[in-house]
């Protein structure tokens, strides 16, 4: 296995770079697939690795979109005037304004979402289990409703973002690489993070939070840090989406609790909670499943999706990678001997 690792990752990187050129008709599809991978991986940071199942991570996606829009537009124009469509103004962005907006918008979105995770987490991390899930869902829904009544950012109409200044096909490649780059950075970051003592500590919180507390681990601080790191990447993903989608509105696109907000959870459950590759595999399987049913089973697509969720939750709780981990622990570098204890095996 060890010798195969480097060639495997090199081949994978080559494929990631080549993909939009190999399948030019699927550029936007692939970009969306990367979005799914990012949100699934970030959801797993708290849901899978730390045992806090958030249904409100979509809050960071939507907030990332809006922060990015406000920053990206704000560096060039007055946001209030820009979003006021009845003013009839026409706004053109120079290249520097457009690309500067993308860069600054993504960074600002990530940082702002991290800050929000700390503030919201300070309250919601007092909740456990299903209460945390519902509490965070409430935050996401409330945020959507608040923003949809906020005139300055376009209220229910949402915001029309500046359009990619060159050929739209190159634009698709541009957004593919923004998503893919974020995804790769996130994956590498997580594969490092989960091996640190911090990673072990959040696993301890998942397995027995009271014990972790009794051992003196700064549980709240670790939970906030994990969620803030997760929120950073969701915020960036939201920011890229804002530019990619060109127009977005608060309830169906930004704070889309019933779509992406649930899809990210399903991806992780499908792929395997608490594993590094699980969310990636789950996101790929889910996205392909979703697109196939949306194309060939139109009218029944939600039924098919619901059936997939039910089957996963009821019969396949460990997900694909979780199942593999039980069958082939050596692939995961896990050293667990399962031989049963002999009666004399205690202290000698």
């Amino acid at each position, binding site marked *: 296995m060890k010798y195969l690792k480097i060639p495997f990752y090199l081949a994978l990187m080559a494929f990631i770079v080549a993909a939009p050129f190999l399948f030019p008709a699927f550029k936007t599809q692939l970009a969306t697939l990367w979005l799914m991978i990012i949100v699934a991986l970030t959801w797993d940071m708290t849901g899978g690795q730390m045992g806090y199942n958030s249904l409100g991570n979509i809050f960071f996606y939507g907030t990332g979109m809006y922060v990015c829009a406000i920053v990206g537009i704000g560096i060039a124009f007055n946001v209030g005037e820009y979003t006021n469509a009845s003013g009839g103004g026409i706004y053109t962005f120079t290249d520097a304004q457009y690309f500067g907006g993308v860069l600054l918008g993504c960074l600002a979105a990530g940082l702002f979402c991290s800050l929000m995770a700390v503030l919201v987490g300070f309250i919601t991390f007092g909740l456990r289990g299903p209460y945390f899930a519902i509490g965070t869902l409430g935050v996401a829904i409330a945020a959507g409703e608040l923003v949809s009544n906020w005139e300055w950012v376009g209220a229910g109409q949402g915001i029309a973002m500046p359009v990619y200044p060159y050929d739209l096909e190159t634009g698709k490649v541009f957004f593919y690489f923004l998503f893919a780059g974020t995804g790769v950075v996130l994956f590498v970051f997580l594969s490092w*993070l989960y*091996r*640190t*003592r*911090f990673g*072990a*500590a959040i*696993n*301890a919180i998942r*397995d*027995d939070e*009271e*014990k*972790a*507390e*009794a*051992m*003196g*681990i*700064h*549980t709240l601080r670790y939970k906030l840090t994990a969620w803030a790191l997760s929120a950073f990447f969701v915020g960036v993903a939201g920011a890229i989406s804002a530019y990619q989608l060109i127009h977005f509105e608060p309830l169906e696109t930004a704070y889309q609790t019933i779509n992406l907000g649930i899809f990210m959870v399903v991806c992780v459950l499908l792929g395997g909670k608490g594993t590094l590759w699980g969310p990636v595999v789950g996101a790929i399987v889910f996205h392909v499943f979703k697109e196939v049913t949306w194309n060939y089973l139109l009218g029944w697509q939600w039924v098919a999706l619901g059936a997939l969720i039910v089957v996963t939750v009821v019969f396949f709780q460990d997900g694909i990678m979780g199942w593999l981990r039980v069958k082939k622990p050596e692939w995961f570098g896990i*050293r*667990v*001997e*399962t*031989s*049963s*204890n002999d009666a004399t*095996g*205690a*202290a*000698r």
Partner: protein
Amino acid sequence: MTVIIETKNVSKSYGGVVANKDISISVESGGITGLIGPNGSGKTTLFNSIVGYHPIDSGTIQFENQEISKKPVQEIARLGLLRTFQQTRIYGEMNCVENMLISLPHRKMTMREIFSRNNRADYEQADRLLEFVGLYEKRFLQSGSLSFGQQKLLEFAMALMNEPTCLLLDEPTAGINPTLINGLIDRLKRANSEFGITLFIIEHNMRVIMNMADQIYCLAHGELLASGPPSAIQSDQRVIDAYLGAH
């Protein structure tokens, strides 16, 4: 010797049930102190009060001359006052070594150390302590699959990994095979003498506690009944009555 834990007039009741009433005890630094008493006499309640699991109704609790009765569990644990549980608590999904590594004292780490991998010294320390409690051969077994007694030993090793100054043990020998108890007594004594950890132990097995402790407190019906060295406790008529149920 200096006093490391001192409670003064600690009272705690659950509704109408008085679990602890005006308990004043002191645990000497570097020694082994025992806490005995019949079932339901309030021993575990006192432990829980000391480590901050619940607020006390009145009284004061000091650890190293610092008032801790208002502090939450984690903060007290970070002062180096640790407890093990009567019903063991370990991370059952992980193997023994991982359990040990998670128990490294995070309170002593810098940010940089928290965000780095465990180093060779950590693994060696984990192996050494697992060897110490006799679980070395089992170190890659999933800890949830260990027997109850082994889990207790693992929890004890995890506590040692955390480098506490004082360790509160709630019935360390309960559920452990009687033939292994002598080994455990020996390990507890070595933890005290070699690692310099002050021990405060709840124990039902009289032979064990009389063997180890320098000072013993006996509770009955939530009140402090007697205190003194093992020889005095053993011959104290009130203690004998409490255990045998005389009135």
